[in-house]
């Protein structure tokens, strides 16, 4: 960015970024007026403030928003010829859903995979839905207002909305959805709405939410139609009429498309809902989603034109360069929300560390820790990403990922004890009694069948860099997770996706009580799982309760830094989010939300 226009843009973005964070932390309305917070549409300034208050705003996002109101999200790269500017409506799109054998459910209460809510988001609605230009929009809520203490939110619902089965939509449906989602026996997402104490019907088209504490992310996360899933509005009538099994396959919603067919494992068909509240959408008549488990047939299908778009899991990394080289395909790549790591069993020699609470300097004197640090420092992330992921990923040093924006420490790659320093790593290994890897036992790396390539690159790297032999122990995910939970491994490759909040990274992974931290281990012989540090536990607990995002960020980054320095795991990389489609498809930037595949604005030319 050297030309004057770009400099101005940068200044404007920096100024907007500063203003977004400039408010009194104790104010329950985050320095905004009640008017600002009322719907149907939030201004860019309001959304930026809410994102800043929630701690999810990045400067890059502001730059993108300043550059073009409806620009693609930051970090987006595209290839292929620009699609013909067509406003054609109608037509049928066939989408391949990668790396999956079946769409197990479309019932929001049971959805536990991103690839499921990518489809559900086209069928069901929420009170709100955010778009990539940082503007929160009412979905089923037409406008809303908030009480002075930020605890009572009143939503006016859209009039004349009908369910796909013709029944009218009303406040009763919102209350029904809330009560259903609140019950852990009926929904797996009850925790998402823990802060909402009550959902009351005021009249047929008005509902009131009562919160326990002010919550900046209410509109953009909790009530969001896809990622929240607890408040994705479902039809009581349809659930009762169809039964849970059928509702999970062909849910009745109020979204732009209605499900007309779902053969488990063979595909889902959705068709344009004629009575959708926005007469301009959707553009397409019909969309068919076909699950395609194998990478090569997936590639052949889009190259042959049998499918025109790839959604679902990320397509295999080795295919992306092939897609980029194909002028008939468009590849859109943005930063993805997740991390991958190699976990080291601290209860096995020679990597044994029985107490991570000691200061780092003391730990560094222990042979077991020297080995762990040597393994982490000999891990050349750039080479790994190049060889195992064909360059698609970003070096990782902790569980907190770059998509978390504000919380992500962009300098952790320079500060972390895990940074790549081969000679130091070799010296550490020698100091631990294994010069040149001599006498070091063979380690087994537990991984899944899709992780084979990455596993081989890792094994090769340790052989080359440290003279250590690593053998792959490839097991199905169901077995791997059981071995992981009972700490039955030397090294284990595992990670996470869909992490939008620091809690997803720290609470789920890095606390002594984290759900992945060896929950089924023998506690007599292993007092903790793969990692336990009292300071990390305390910092993680504290950050959850803080209203001040800057304070929260400081604690999140501190905890993340400790897990990185004390080698809670060898953090390898953060994956990217990739969408591939044929040039006859126009997938507007307005719909390019990382992790989602909203097709209501998508068109296809014959």
């Amino acid at each position, binding site marked *: 960015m050297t030309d004057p226009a770009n400099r101005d843009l940068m200044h404007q973005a920096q100024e907007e970024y500063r203003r977004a964070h400039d408010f009194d932390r104790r104010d329950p309305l985050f320095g905004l007026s009640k008017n600002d917070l009322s719907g149907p549409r939030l201004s860019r300034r309001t959304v930026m403030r809410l994102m800043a208050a929630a701690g999810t705003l990045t400067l890059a996002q502001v730059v993108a928003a300043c550059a073009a109101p409806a620009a693609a999200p930051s970090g987006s790269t595209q290839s292929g010829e620009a699609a013909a500017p067509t406003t054609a409506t109608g037509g049928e799109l066939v989408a391949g859903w990668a790396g999956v054998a079946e769409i*197990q459910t479309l019932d929001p209460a049971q959805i536990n995979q991103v690839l499921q809510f990518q489809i559900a988001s086209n069928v069901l609605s929420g009170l709100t839905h955010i778009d990539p230009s940082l503007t929160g929009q009412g979905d089923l809520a037409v406008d809303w207002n908030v009480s002075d203490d930020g605890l009572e939110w009143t939503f006016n619902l859209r009039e004349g909305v009908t369910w796909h089965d013709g029944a009218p939509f009303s406040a009763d449906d919102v209350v029904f959805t809330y009560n259903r989602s609140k019950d*852990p026996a009926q929904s*797996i997402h*009850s925790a998402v709405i823990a802060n909402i104490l009550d959902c009351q019907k005021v009249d047929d088209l008005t509902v009131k939410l009562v919160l326990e504490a002010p919550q900046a992310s209410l509109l953009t996360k909790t009530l969001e139609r896809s990622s929240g899933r607890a408040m994705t509005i479902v039809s009581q009538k349809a659930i009762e009429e169809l039964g849970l099994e059928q509702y999970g396959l062909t849910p009745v919603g109020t979204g732009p498309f209605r499900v007309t067919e779902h*053969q*488990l494992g063979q595909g889902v068909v959705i068709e344009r809902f004629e009575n959708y509240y926005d007469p301009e959408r959707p553009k397409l008549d019909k969309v068919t989603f076909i699950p395609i488990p194998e990478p090569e047939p997936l590639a052949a299908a889009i190259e042959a034109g*049998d499918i025109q778009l790839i959604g679902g899991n990320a397509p295999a990394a080795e295919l992306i360069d092939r897609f980029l080289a194909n002028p008939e395909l468009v590849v859109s790549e943005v930063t993805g929300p997740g991390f991958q790591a190699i976990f080291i069993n601290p209860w096995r020699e020679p990597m044994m560390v029985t107490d991570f609470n000691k200061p780092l300097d003391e730990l560094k004197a222990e042979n077991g820790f020297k080995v762990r640090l040597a393994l982490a420092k000999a891990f050349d992330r750039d080479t790994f990403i190049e060889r195992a992921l064909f360059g698609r990923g970003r070096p990782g040093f902790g569980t907190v990922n770059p998509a978390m924006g504000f919380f992500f420490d962009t300098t952790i790659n320079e500060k972390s004890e895990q940074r790549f320093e081969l000679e130091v790593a070799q010296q550490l290994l020698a100091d631990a009694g294994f010069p040149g890897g001599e006498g070091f036992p063979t380690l087994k790396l537990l991984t899944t069948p899709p992780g084979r390539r990455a596993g081989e690159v890792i094994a090769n790297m340790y052989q080359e860099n440290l003279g250590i032999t690593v053998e792959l122990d490839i097991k199905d995910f169901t*077995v791997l*997770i059981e071995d992981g939970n009972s700490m039955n491994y030397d090294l284990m490759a595992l990670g996470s996706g869909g992490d939008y909040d620091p809690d997803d990274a720290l609470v789920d992974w890095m606390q002594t009580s984290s759900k992945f931290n060896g929950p089924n281990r023998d506690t007599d012989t292993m007092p903790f799982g793969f990692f336990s540090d009292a300071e990390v536990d305390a910092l993680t607990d504290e950050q959850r309760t803080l209203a001040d995002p800057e304070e929260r960020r400081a604690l999140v980054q501190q905890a993340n830094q400790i897990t990185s320095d004390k080698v809670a795991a060898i953090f390898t990389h953060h994956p990217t989010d990739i969408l591939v489609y044929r040039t006859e498809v126009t997938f507007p930037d307005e719909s390019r939300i990382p992790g989602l595949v909203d097709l209501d604005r998508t068109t296809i030319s014959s």
Partner: protein
Amino acid sequence: MTRYLIRRILASILVIIGVATLVFFLLRAVPGDPFAAMLAEVDPSVADELRRKFGMDQPVYVQYVLWMARLVQGDLGNSLYGSNVSVSRIIAEAIPRTLSLTFLSALVALAIALPAGILSALRKNTVVDHGFTFFAFLGLSMPDFWVGILLIIVFAVNLQWLPAIGYKPMSDGIWLWLRHLILPAIATGTAFSAIIARMTRSTMLEVLNADYIKVAHAKGLGQRQVVFRHALRNALIPVVTVMGIAFALLMSGTVIVENVFAIKGLGRVLIQGILNRDYPVVQGAILLVSTIFVLTNLLVDLLYTVIDPRIRYE
């Protein structure tokens, strides 16, 4: 014959119950916890709730008795995943796809194998025989998924004659149904055709040397009549046995080709169930597959009596 049939059917039922019982306990002995994997993305506190819901908190023998009790009533249970779709529905949806693929694959296998086997035998040790032998071994040595991908690249990507993936039911139109199955049927049929062709060749050779063939020739019968009426019919008995096994294998074992062509047949139901440790689905699918094997064996034994009237069961 009737007594034989009753005896065989009773024995078959015993075999099926035995297999079902074995699978039930083996599955639970295999490492891997369906709920641990399922809950990787949600709150673990829901796990106990789910285990209760599916009766997995009960001792294994109690689960077995409950499963058997439901089985007698024709209830195969529900999948542990997603919307807990009933196993009978999953299987009922998969059967037409598998049957279609099996039927067409068997057709492809026979269409290649019988002429190749007969010609090889008649032209023993000639270029024709060696040529067919070469292609038979080629067909045997090429893995079906590789043949499948090769077919996709040639006929779907380059020539764009046929679709690369997917399945359409016959109710959408015979041609649409056939178009989607041609490539997968060739991919699975080729390997089986190689086995059947070799089998046909060797039994034909044996029969062609028999005295009654010489008699037939001596009687002045034409070559065509000797081959088809006298030789082939007798040579078919071992071939029918192989075809029976091949048919049963195809019904459950086309999983790799099903994955390549994105068709969810019985094989994929089974493998997907095993990978997910979705116990009710695996139990249901194995029950069906073992029934198919047992019934096919019975059918093959009965077919012998039709092909060779000298065979009688008492």
